[in-house]
């Protein structure tokens, strides 16, 4: 829970910590002062370096980095002033993540391979959709040495301009997605550059990128990431011939291990195809022949609109940052323009409640004022955020997808109306595919967890989706389930959450955090599917029963005929007509 909050509040939380430090310098002890200043410096420098709105350290990253600095210097604190403090230096975000690669999903070689493919594919899909292009993606994994692989991902997206390219691939936390509230696969701008960095750390080789925009020449780059400065180092920059009209190809060499199966790249891409019926995927694994997933639909998902943050979804630290950075010159303007769902009336109410003047300049609202404002926002009645920013997969598309991949005997999909957790709109979709020979009937159901169309591969049991599936009473729908376990049935369950900010339990995006609002929505969606499934199963049972009855009748009618013949001395012909009449009578009664 707290972890998730950290990830959601992003730089806000980090910032809060930093400001706390700064403001507490007055009271802190001698050594504490220097440390907190240093930390603040680090953060500021980092944010200075990042151009535009890209801010400083990543949530937990920044915080942890700060902590590490403190830890290193702990001995110095005890000997305050007597001995020269141990060497203190800045830590760059890249450096921090290089040492804490597990936070990004590079804990082991096989996971590293998956994460690399995943980040590249996510980026490609986001790029294509933003450009309004039906994505066609090639994934190629080559085995170079025993533990050395080359991952190549090519898309038909709009391409990346020559100027942007080094930054996108060679700088952590550079991205377009972190600071806007908009449903997209990537959230933080860590992904692909982290993958590149991992490759660079393990093999020393740069990331190779070829990209071509429409009617422009293709460029080929080899990019290294300077972990000290979080800046890209370009080792090669050349114009090349590429016979496609637009697209991007990324090539990363890394230390990894390939294992086939459901939890590997194979399973991941399979699920990507399932979750994105509009995508065509060509996959060439290191072992075995190529796999193609053709698109089941030519409909691009509706474009997700960007929204402003909802006041209730903003935490104090973030509020303070927004106050500082806003271009609006009074609090009233700040509230009505920087947030969604704040009308003049609501702004007045909030300011009244806080006892602040509408004319007050946001820049002069110091910490205490911000806190009163924050509390007042929590008290105020504010309409839920707009939900047109969400782009569900859609019931039809889900059904198409499930049917084309599983060929089930019964499938059902449900898209719930949008809902809100902590000021963030979200929407749950659930789908079931039942029977049809693709599944085993004495194993737990297959569970596909999707967040903004991205399959979640690890930490199944820690995930809110799994918990919700387990807590749903499947027995009501004639699906066997033992207590505290997934139901056992020849069935696949798919749950998709679409949100402007998906609450993951960690940066590696493996499991959904259990917000009660989200869990409730998931359960409602599952129950809706379950009811339909129950009806289907019941109908199936009824038909089977009817057939059994028919067979049963067939079994015993001749004996009634024989007995009547023996007692009454009927002719064979008379017996046959009696038997057939009897059959008619019973068949008729069966229907009633």
């Amino acid at each position: 829970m707290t972890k998730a909050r950290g990830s959601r509040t992003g730089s806000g939380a980090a910032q809060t910590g930093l400001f706390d430090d700064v403001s507490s310098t007055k009271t802190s002890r001698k050594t504490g002062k220097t440390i907190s200043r240093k930390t603040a410096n680090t953060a500021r420098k980092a944010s200075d370096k990042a151009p535009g709105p890209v801010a400083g350290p990543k949530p937990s990253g920044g915080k942890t980095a700060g902590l590490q600095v403190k830890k290193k210097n702990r001995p110095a604190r005890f000997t305050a002033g007597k001995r020269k403090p141990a060497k203190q230096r800045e830590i760059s975000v890249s450096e921090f993540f290089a040492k804490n690669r597990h936070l990004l999903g590079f804990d082991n070689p096989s996971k590293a391979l998956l994460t690399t493919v995943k980040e590249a594919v996510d980026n490609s899909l986001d790029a294509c959709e933003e450009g309004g292009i039906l994505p066609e993606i090639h994934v190629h994994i080559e085995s170079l040495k025993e533990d050395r692989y080359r991952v190549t991902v090519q898309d038909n997206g709009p391409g990346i301009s020559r100027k942007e390219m080094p930054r996108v691939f060679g700088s952590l936390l550079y991205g377009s997605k972190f600071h806007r509230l908009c449903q997209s696969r990537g959230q933080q701008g860590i992904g692909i550059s982290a993958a590149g960095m991992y490759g660079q750390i393990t093999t020393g080789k740069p990331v190779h990128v070829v990209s071509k925009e429409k009617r422009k020449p293709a460029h080929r780059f080899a990019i290294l990431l300077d972990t000290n400065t979080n800046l890209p180092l370009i080792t090669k920059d050349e114009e090349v011939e590429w016979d496609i009209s637009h697209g991007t190809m990324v090539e990363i060499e890394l230390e990894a291990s390939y294992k086939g199966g459901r939890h590997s790249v194979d399973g991941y891409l399979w699920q990507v195809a399932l979750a994105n019926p509009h995508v065509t995927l060509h996959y060439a694994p290191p072992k075995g022949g190529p796999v193609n997933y053709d698109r089941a639909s030519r409909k691009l998902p509706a474009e997700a609109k960007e929204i402003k943050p909802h006041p209730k979804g903003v935490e104090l630290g973030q509020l303070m940052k927004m106050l500082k950075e806003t271009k609006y010159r009074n609090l009233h303007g700040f509230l009505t323009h920087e947030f969604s769902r704040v009308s003049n009336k609501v702004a007045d109410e909030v300011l009244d409640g806080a006892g602040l003047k509408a004319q007050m300049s946001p820049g002069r609202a110091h910490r205490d004022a911000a806190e009163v404002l924050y509390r007042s926002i929590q008290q105020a009645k504010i309409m839920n955020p707009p939900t047109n920013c969400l782009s569900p997969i859609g019931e039809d598309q889900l059904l198409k997808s499930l049917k084309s991949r599983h060929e089930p005997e019964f499938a059902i999909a449900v898209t719930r109306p949008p809902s809100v957790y902590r000021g963030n709109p979200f929407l749950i979709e659930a789908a079931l595919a039942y029977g049809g020979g693709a599944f085993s009937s004495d194993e737990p159901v297959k569970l596909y967890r999707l967040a903004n169309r991205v399959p979640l591969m690890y930490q199944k049991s820690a995930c809110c989706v799994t918990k919700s599936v387990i807590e749903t009473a499947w027995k009501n729908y004639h699906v066997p389930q033992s207590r505290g376990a997934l139901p056992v049935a020849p069935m696949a369950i798919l749950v998709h959450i679409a949100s402007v900010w998906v609450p993951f339990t960690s940066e590696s995006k493996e499991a959904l955090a259990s917000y009660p609002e989200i869990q409730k929505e998931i359960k409602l969606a599952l129950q809706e599917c379950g009811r339909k499934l129950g009806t289907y199963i019941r109908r199936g049972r009824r038909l089977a029963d009817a057939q059994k009855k028919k067979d049963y009748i067939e079994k015993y009618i001749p004996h009634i005929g024989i007995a009547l013949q023996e007692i009454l001395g009927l002719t064979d012909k008379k017996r046959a007509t009696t038997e057939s009449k009897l059959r008619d009578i019973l068949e008729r009664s069966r229907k009633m």
Partner: protein
Amino acid sequence: MASKKKINIVERIRREAGSVETRVNRGRKPTMKFPVRSLQNVSYQARKGYFEIMGRTKERTLTVNTVKTFAQTLRMMALSKELIETDDIATKREAYYVSKNWGEARFKEQPESDTVMEDVEALFRVNREQLGFIPEEKGGDVAGQLVVIDIDPSTGKKLRIDCTKFGSGAYSIPISVEQLEFETKAKFILVIETAGMFQRLVKHSYWKTANCVLVSMGGVPTRACRRFIRRLADIKKIPVYVFVDGDPYGFMNIYRTLKVGSGNAAHLNEFFCVPQARFLGITPKDIDDYELPTHPLKDVDIKRAKDALKNDPFVLHHKPWQQALKQMIKMGVRAEQQALAKHGLNYVIDEYLPQKIKKTSQFLP
């Protein structure tokens, strides 16, 4: 007379089957009406002295769910018709084996075939012997002051069987007792539950000292046994005393069945009951009076006693039996006939029975 009866039954079977056939050919669901065979459908006729069947019937309509039993019932009727027409008999077990030739309609276990047979029996309100079916079990043993006059099956001549002349053995009650005649000067009939107690009384010629007829039931009395005692008691007008274990099974399943009949074969109780029977022992009071060694009542015993207090029309009619059952439940113990051996092996002959028989008015009804 017998042959007329036979034709009569064959005719009734044919009529029943005929009505089924006509209904089917008219496109209607055939039905058969059976009397309900349970204690719920009997009333205790104190004046007549037995459980009389009430009018309640269950209608078995041919539906998907009943098609199997319906077929089996009809086939059983066909078998019965064949038996009567060829003047043959089949034991219940044999009838079960015959069904094995019925393909899918065969019975899995004998109790299934017995139930269907009893249904047919009740349907026509006849004795199963009249349908050509005979029971497996023997009727019971007799020893004492009695001459049974039977007919020699090979010669057709009358045969005098003196029940005093079996030494340490006994005369076996045949399956059919209707043709028997009796000669006796005995003062009473003593009906005994266990073969062991019967053996003891025969060995020491108790029938000689007490001038009585001894009958061993060997558990719940068979129909033949009940009918034998009934005819003997009716014809010779002698009292019947019943001596069974002191437990709810002895009271209800054995004594009550002997005296007033059962719920299961209620349509036959009129013939298969012994209304003049009186309960000699062992009563709950005996357990105290004779300081008998006891065993605790089992759960089934308690349940049986409570059921009887609630549902058995016979118990509901007789206060003394209600008191006896309540007393037994309260004591929580039961005692077997053989428990009297505590006071010496022949205590039962020398003390218990003579003392009891002096006070027949104190016997339970």
